[in-house]
């Protein structure tokens, strides 16, 4: 049977209620998905507005909560940065639902590869066992792994606005507002799952005149405990000033981070991605590396993998006309963590990770630069269409685009600018779906006669 049109809608409906679809439908779905993904470049072009999400790890009910908080597909344009599977109990339903949505609304959802989208990792961390348990054979796991090999390695978001239009919503308790009332340059806004404003930060605002709320008792409050300047989780500081403008540089989204083999985005485009995640090399680094408070590049103490410091990120962003790198891969208790003067952010979207960490999750919304209105939406192809948008693949080069004389409005605006102004960032922070909705055993440990 074929899976298309109403069949696909039926499959989506079934998966939304957390019921797996039959094996023959999975095969068909994976085939369709591969046909679609093979057309995508290694770096998918995505237009703002877009909602960027981090690790999901098979926490299906929390993925439903994410959609409740962030809006449904196709109303909201989503970008998921990998690690859909493993650890949680519903990797299969989570990944297949995302895949169905991808096939049904290809221009409204982008999926990129995480280090868990790999044969080797899924055999150790749960997805393989889950498929075997739910289907009695490894076929479905095999189909899914073939899709993994076709997932893009990154995405480039363009057309994001540098400032947010403030949300018209009530303030949450203990809200942290670092924003003069007349400010028209709202850089960061954090909302809770009820849509209430938890914090606000204006661009370049030093926050000195605003008294910080007193620290919350440890681990008790949903509002991240503020530290240093700027709202918790953000790296907002008074140094992030800059010229006024209403479009930001592009935002690179990858699962892990940078690679010493990759100094331009074009080099990512040249990789042969259709393979199992290798143990070394650029593709491996993009999915595995982590930022750290170091200078330059470092080696992980584990004996494999790179760590990169602020200078690496700043240099890469400048060279590639990026204003921000969004990545996932590391658990952060507040759901998101900006580092290195807000040049890189970690987004984590699995609340109460592994059903026991008690952490909150976050998604990052980037607004649309108003001047982008009327532009023809590009397909998710590698090379961007014309029409005044970014010319993907040609806006970067050894000189960071400075020598590019195509007259592109955005490109010309970066000339002579030291660093691109970051996009306006709205973080929606949310908790785990309630325990009873997932049919999970009670949290209370069962007494046993251990020895």
């Amino acid at each position, binding site marked *: 049977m074929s899976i298309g049109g109403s069949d696909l809608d039926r499959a989506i409906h079934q998966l939304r209620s957390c019921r797996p679809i039959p094996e023959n439908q999975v095969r068909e779905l994976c085939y369709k998905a591969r046909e679609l993904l093979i057309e995508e470049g290694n770096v998918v072009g995505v237009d703002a507005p877009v909602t960027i999400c981090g690790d999901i790890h098979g926490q299906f009910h929390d993925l439903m909560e994410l959609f409740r908080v962030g809006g449904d597909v196709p109303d909201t344009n989503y970008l998921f940065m990998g690690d859909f599977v493993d650890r949680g109990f519903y990797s299969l339903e989570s990944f297949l639902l995302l895949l169905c949505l991808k096939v049904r609304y290809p221009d409204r959802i982008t999926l990129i590869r995480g280090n868990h989208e790999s044969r080797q990792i899924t055999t150790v961390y749960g997805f393989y066992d889950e498929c075997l348990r739910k289907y009695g054979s490894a076929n479905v796991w095999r189909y899914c792994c073939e899709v993994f090999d076709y997932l893009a390695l990154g995405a480039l978001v363009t057309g994001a606005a540098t400032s947010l239009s403030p949300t018209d919503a009530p303030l949450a308790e203990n809200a942290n507002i670092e924003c003069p009332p007349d400010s028209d340059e709202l850089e960061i806004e954090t909302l809770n799952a009820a849509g209430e404003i938890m914090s606000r930060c204006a661009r370049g605002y030093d926050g000195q005149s605003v008294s910080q709320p007193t620290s919350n008792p440890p681990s008790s409050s949903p509002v991240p405990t503020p530290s240093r300047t700027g709202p918790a989780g953000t790296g907002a500081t008074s140094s992030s000033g800059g010229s006024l403008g209403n479009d930001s540089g592009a935002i690179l989204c990858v699962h892990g981070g940078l690679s010493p083999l990759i100094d331009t985005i074009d080099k990512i485009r040249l990789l042969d991605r259709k393979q199992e995640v290798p143990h070394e090399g650029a593709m491996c680094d993009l999915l595995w590396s982590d930022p750290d408070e170091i200078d330059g590049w470092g080696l992980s103490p*584990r004996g494999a993998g790179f760590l990169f410091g602020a200078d690496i990120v700043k240099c890469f962003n400048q060279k590639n006309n990026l204003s921000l790198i969004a990545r996932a891969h590391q658990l952060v208790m507040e759901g998101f963590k900006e580092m290195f003067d807000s040049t890189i952010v970690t987004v984590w979207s699995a609340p109460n990770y592994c059903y026991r960490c008690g952490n909150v999750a976050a998604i990052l919304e980037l607004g649309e630069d108003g001047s982008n209105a009327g532009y023809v939406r590009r397909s998710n192809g590698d090379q961007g269409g014309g029409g005044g948008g970014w010319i993907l693949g040609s806006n970067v080069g050894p000189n960071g685009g400075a020598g590019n004389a195509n007259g592109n409005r955005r490109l010309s605006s970066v000339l002579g600018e030291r660093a691109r102004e970051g996009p306006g960032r709205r973080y929606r922070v949310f908790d785990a779906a309630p325990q009873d909705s997932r049919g999970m055993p009670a949290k209370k440990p069962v007494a046993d006669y251990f020895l």
Partner: protein
Amino acid sequence: MSSSTGAPLDTPAPGHDADSVITRTGFRIATRKLPILKAGPIDDMTKKLGIAPPEMIFGDNMARIEHAQSGWSIEFNAFDALDRVDKTGDSMLKVSYSKEWQQNRQKQFEDIKEVVKPFDWSYSTDYKGSVSGGPAFTPTDTPIPLALLQRKDPILFFDDVMLYEDELADNGIAMLSSKIRVMPERLLLLSRFFMRLDDVLLRIRDTRVYVDFATGEVIREYTAREEKYEVVRKALAGTKDDVLAVLRDPNPLSQYLPITEKTLEKVVLK
């Protein structure tokens, strides 16, 4: 759905369900369970410890046994356990594909040599609990009376407290937890460190604390076990067990790991 305040529904607020307590003939047994630490407390802990804490750090959690009359207590908490992790690079393990990775890397990036903040990132600890007050433990030959613990006496109090956990960057698992069960006449606490570095090494380090309420006798047994991954995998291949499942579960696994260290101590509280 979440509550309107956004508080995680799964996790108790401090001062409420987080703490569990039972008192038994002069002994007070308490556990505390809270979510992982947030960024601020993690920064503080990092400074105090001098190493990066594990990815999941339950820094507010603890399991504690107190004897009021003698002022003696033993507590199991994450900070003290992590303080015993090797903070130098001397006992650092390497992930299975490290050699392959290093060789390929060296061809291209000879200048990237510095290993960032070396320490025992497997978070292996020989923690036996934090003891304070009262008389000290002394070596003994008296074993923990297994027969008495195998009786199905009613369990009056039970808890399983996670102290820390790290996925070793998807190369395995390191975890430390403390389990406790209190029966009418005695209790057993098991604090277990379990570490599996895929394709490299397996470690189980158990600290058992046995208390006899009537006599005030406390026995502490520490057992460290260790074996190469490949040796265990081969041994398991000859059984009908699911190899990967056993490698994830320290209970069936422990019989395949030879004992590398064992101590037995006793203290009598009056």
